């Protein structure tokens, strides 16, 4: 007994209160799938399918069950629907996942990506949006009085059409999205980069429906010009143009639909199109029409209906009639297809029968606009112009028994091999080694800890304590602050969450670089009225206590997932008083003999020109005479009447004379190490915390741009770009280099704004600088050059979404850009405690990015991170398509050889203290084994290891 349900709360409303759902789709995930709907109100809603099942069981929608006994009764009138439609608040609890108001006009179609993590929508505002789920609170559109949604979905915009967008379709790999529009074109988007792959022009009128074939070779589109075009995805040319069959449709007057939704069967063998008129012996009948791929789409077959067909949808599953038997002759696998008509009739056919399995008249009050099948293959949902949607649940014995994953794959393989699709046949295993490795891999994945920890020595973790000192992080506003601009107040709001990387990408494209005032702690007290962003930054940074509080704030806001980090953090804060000893002990590393570098050579060669042309902004005026050193202890440096004073509150702690006729132009200090001042004759003075002169005055080449004392180091950048780093308390020159090579052209137009954030100093005393544009550079003394360690060139990398697990809970940390991620590792916690070492499904990752990340990790000596990346890299190398395999096998072999052969390779040197053979046998090779095409390689290396 099939069961029907009309959930009238599942609705989109226009002013008259009519539920009006243009499109509906069910997410293709097994675990609690979601439904997406859209309509005239411009809102995309996401619901939980489960809530329908619950509503059905509870009989919440009383008397709306329609008994349909199958297959004898073919036509059943479903009962009248209640017309109480005004009460949107009757949405059951926990039913609504999100309510998204990104579109500003009607939304015409929603579709989930094949893997289910993204949702695309197309609207009359000419835009397409792609949504993904984020952490945080969900909001209903303000003023709508809807219940608060349970999840936080965020959208990003794809803009390219010049008129209403009527439909979207995902490619089976999930990397391409096609959208069709009233502007007669189809745009194919790359959703990884949000760029247009191609714009297809071929229809002579509106394009009203489109669908990718499940093997990924074709895209079919149906236009108002009454043509179905089948495009090849290889070169985007038209493979087949079907016009003749639809010619007659024009001759009949009937209610026109905005949509001609078409669909491919799950095996890719058949294409079914809507809105056709079958002509047979001068008799005409509305129909959906089926084309077979093996007949080159030539011989149409018709499904006749009583009214025009607006939409067709195949179940993604295949079925068999006998439950416990193999799929053979006599128990063939078959498909199921649902069709919705203009009169609201729902028809379901199964391919094994020549009669419709189910005809449900008045399934919906108005024309059926869209259909969706649940991933389990037993639920069907239909949306309509009027009245609530229909949820129909089949019993197993009615529709048939869904094939198991294995059976389904066999059927798909067979069909697809006949069709000549470039579909890989997975080769059979040739040895037991492969099977053992596969078992191991599956087991580890299942246990949820594909961890290399097991094979790491404890000593290794000590190596991981790769702390950098003086870490500076621009912060997001934690509290509201305000000041006045002219007559008006300007409020800096409290930041609740930042952008996702895609949004960030959009922002960058429109030339909006992120300004500092949102990311820094405002100054509030010590600067009245006129506010200079630069001051903010340095103010935060130099006062170590503010700094500490800043850090803890960030920990609260971003990292409450991992308590061990916070412990480390606290320890670090506690140690500030012992800073000097701490650093002396810690950085006793012998300084290598210092040689000028390429970067410096450039600086020194062209100093004359640099001074005139390449000038960084001078040290901020506001701090040249008065600077707060420690806000909590209220310690500040002040220059009054030719003398430098150190105040605690208003008490003078000490005073020092700086010389005749000079003024200070820069002040800095740290309560635990020393205080420093630069005078107008470019002389650097250093004082102990008790006011005694620590060192003879130093003469600088130019005026200062930045002067900071950062946990055991003195850091100076001059306006000509010369940067010096001194180790304290010895005042030993660690490094002198020019920052000019890393400054972009535009920086010289940014007068008065911060250009460089205060640096991080690594254990190796390499210096890491972050520029205003978010790029980070490390000065590597071994190379004598700046190297780029973080930038935004791989904005769509999934490492922007890296999640860390803690007690089974996943905490996704919103990332501004890769820089913050990097900082988290290097500046704060040395290396992330990546407890879940399972190589993630590197769907969106590129090899190039992984290589870059590994290079950075290697240089930063962040080994745990390196290993995680390496496993992802191997995983990526192994999960390649057959066509790419030969070139990647060489790369893979190179990695494996490197790991095996010793200590000096790129990979092996980052694996010290790991037991190589165990690592290979238990971690690396099981990953290789997941691709059976590589089984020879896995075997080869197992042999090698055994013979070692």
């Amino acid at each position, binding site marked *: 007994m099939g069961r029907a349900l009309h959930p009238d709360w599942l609705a989109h409303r226009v002013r008259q209160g009519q539920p009006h759902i243009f499109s509906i789709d069910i997410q293709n995930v097994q675990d609690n799938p979601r439904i997406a709907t859209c309509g005239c109100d411009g809102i995309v809603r996401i619901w939980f399918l489960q809530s329908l099942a619950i509503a059905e069981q509870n009989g919440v929608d009383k008397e709306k069950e329609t008994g349909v006994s199958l297959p004898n009764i073919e036509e059943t009138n479903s009962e009248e629907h209640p017309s109480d439609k005004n009460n949107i608040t009757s949405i059951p609890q926990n039913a609504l996942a999100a309510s998204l108001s990104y579109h500003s006009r009607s939304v015409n179609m929603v579709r989930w990506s094949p893997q289910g993590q993204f949702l695309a929508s197309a609207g*009359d505002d000419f835009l397409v949006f792609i949504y993904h789920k984020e952490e945080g609170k969900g909001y209903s559109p303000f003023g709508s009085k809807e219940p608060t949604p349970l999840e936080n979905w965020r959208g990003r915009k794809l803009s390219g059409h*010049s008129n209403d967008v009527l439909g979207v379709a995902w490619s089976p790999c999930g990397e391409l999205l096609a959208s069709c529009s009233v502007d007669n074109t189809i745009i194919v988007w790359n959703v990884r980069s949000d760029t247009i792959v191609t714009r297809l022009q071929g229809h002579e009128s509106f394009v009203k429906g489109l669908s990718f074939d499940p093997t990924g070779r074709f895209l079919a589109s149906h236009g108002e010009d009454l043509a179905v075009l089948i495009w090849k995805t290889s070169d985007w040319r038209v493979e087949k143009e079907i016009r003749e069959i639809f010619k007659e449709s024009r001759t009949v007057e009937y209610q026109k639909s905005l949509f001609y939704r078409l669909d491919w069967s799950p095996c890719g063998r058949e294409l079914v199109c809507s809105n056709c008129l079958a002509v047979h012996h001068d008799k005409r009948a509305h129909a959906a029409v089926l084309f077979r791929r093996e007949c080159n789409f030539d011989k149409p077959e018709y499904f006749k209906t009583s009214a025009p067909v607006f939409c067709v949808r195949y179940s993604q599953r295949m079925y068999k009639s006998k439950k416990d038997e193999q799929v053979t002759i006599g128990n063939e696998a078959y498909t199921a297809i649902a069709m919705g008509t203009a009169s609201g009739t729902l028809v379901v056919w199964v391919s094994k029968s020549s009669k419709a399995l189910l005809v449900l008249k008045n399934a919906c009050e108005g024309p059926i606009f869209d259909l969706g099948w649940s991933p389990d293959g037993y639920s069907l949902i239909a949306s309509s112009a009027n009245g609530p949607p229909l949820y129909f649940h089949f019993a197993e014995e009615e529709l048939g028994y869904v094939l198991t994953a294995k059976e389904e794959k066999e059927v798909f393989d067979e069909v697809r091999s006949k069709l000549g699709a470039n579909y890989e046949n997975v080769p059979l295993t040739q040895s037991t080694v492969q099977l053992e490795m596969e078992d191991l891999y599956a087991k580890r994945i299942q246990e949820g800890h594909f961890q290399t920890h097991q094979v790491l020595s404890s000593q290794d973790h000590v190596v991981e304590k790769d702390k950098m000192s003086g870490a500076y992080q621009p912060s997001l506003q934690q509290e509201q602050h305000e000041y006045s601009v002219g007559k008006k107040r*300007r409020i800096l709001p*409290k930041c609740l969450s930042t952008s996702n990387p895609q949004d*960030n990408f959009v*922002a960058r494209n*429109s030339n909006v670089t992120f300004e500092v005032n949102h990311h820094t702690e405002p100054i509030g007290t010590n600067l009245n009225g006129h506010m200079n962003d630069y001051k903010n930054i340095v103010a935060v940074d130099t006062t170590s206590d503010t700094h500490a509080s800043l850090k803890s704030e960030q920990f609260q806001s971003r990292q409450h997932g991992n308590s061990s980090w916070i412990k480390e953090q606290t320890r670090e804060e506690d140690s500030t008083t012992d800073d000097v000893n701490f650093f002396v002990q810690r950085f006793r590393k012998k300084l290598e003999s210092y040689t000028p570098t390429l970067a410096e050579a450039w600086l020194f060669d062209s100093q004359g020109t640099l001074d005139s042309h390449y000038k960084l902004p001078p040290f901020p005026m506001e701090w040249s005479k008065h600077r707060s050193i420690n806000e909590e202890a209220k310690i500040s440096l002040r220059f009054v009447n030719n003398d430098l004073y150190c105040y605690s509150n208003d008490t003078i702690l000490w005073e020092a004379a700086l010389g005749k006729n000079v003024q200070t132009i820069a002040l800095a200090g740290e309560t635990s190490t020393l205080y420093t001042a630069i005078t107008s004759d470019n002389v650097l003075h250093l004082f102990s915390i008790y006011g005694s002169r620590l060192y003879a005055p130093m003469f600088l080449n130019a005026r200062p741009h930045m002067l900071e004392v950062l946990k055991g180091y003195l850091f100076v950048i001059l306006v000509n770009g010369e940067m010096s780093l001194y180790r304290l308390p010895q005042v030993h020159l660690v490094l002198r280099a020019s920052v000019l090579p890393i400054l972009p052209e535009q920086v010289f137009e940014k007068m008065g704004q911060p250009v460089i954030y205060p640096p991080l100093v690594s254990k190796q005393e390499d210096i890491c600088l972050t520029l205003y544009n978010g790029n980070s550079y490390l000065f590597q003394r071994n190379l004598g050059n700046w190297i780029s360690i973080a930038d935004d060139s791989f904005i769509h990398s999934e490492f922007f979404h890296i999640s860390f697990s803690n007690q089974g809970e996943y905490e996704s940390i919103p990332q501004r850009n890769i820089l913050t991620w990097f900082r988290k590792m290097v500046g704060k916690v040395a290396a992330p405690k990546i407890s879940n070492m399972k190589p993630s499904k590197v769907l969106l990752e590129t090899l190039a990015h992984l290589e870059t990340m590994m290079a950075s990790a290697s240089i930063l000596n962040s080994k745990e991170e390196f290993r995680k990346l390496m496993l992802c890299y191997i995983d990526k190398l192994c999960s390649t398509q057959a066509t790419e395999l030969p070139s990647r096998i060489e790369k893979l072999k190179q990695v494996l050889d490197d790991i095996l052969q010793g200590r000096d390779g790129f990979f092996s040197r980052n694996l010290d203290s790991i037991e190589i053979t165990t690592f290979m046998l238990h971690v690396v090779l099981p990953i290789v084994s997941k691709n059976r095409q590589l089984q020879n390689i896995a075997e080869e290396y197992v042999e090698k290891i055994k013979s070692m």
Partner: protein
Amino acid sequence: MSAVEVLQVDVLNNPGFFGDPFRFEITYEVREALQQDIEWKVIYVGCAKDESLDQVLDEVLLPADTVGRFQFTLEVVAPNPDKIPIDDLLGITAVLITCSYRDQEFIRIGYYLNNEYEEAEMNENPPSPPILESIRRHIFAEEPRVTHFLHSFDSNDSYLDENSSHSMVNSYSNLLDTVEETQHSKLKHSDMQSSRMNMF
């Protein structure tokens, strides 16, 4: 799409006295970073039939150059009672929160509010001059009237150029019409609840 979307407005210190400052906690989302500041305005409708008596209580600037969610509390002074006709001091009126970008409004949030003396008798025979300290203000915070106006922000979304036949702008004038009717029907408090229901 709207580059800035209001997610939530919480009306704080409500109900309060006539002279209390208005406080709104506003949560908004920047969906596309904007080059300039957005401007929030709070307008008190002094008299429903005369727009010139609207009082702009404050205008504040907020940055919108970072994509993300933000929250701030907008606190503005109470309206100047001298500029309100004495007949309109009591009864139902409205307070509007608007947000604009490049001097063009893209969202308007309206709240009805009711000013009345605590004692019913005083409402029936209002003292002259009015005793401002005794007037209670109640904002109907659960019933915001939200009006979106299409705005191009920094982009040039082409759909805005078209003569928009189905724009989502609903009429703000309705709100004021209703206020006017209500004000002039001189309703007692007991009737007001039901009349308010009609309005929404």
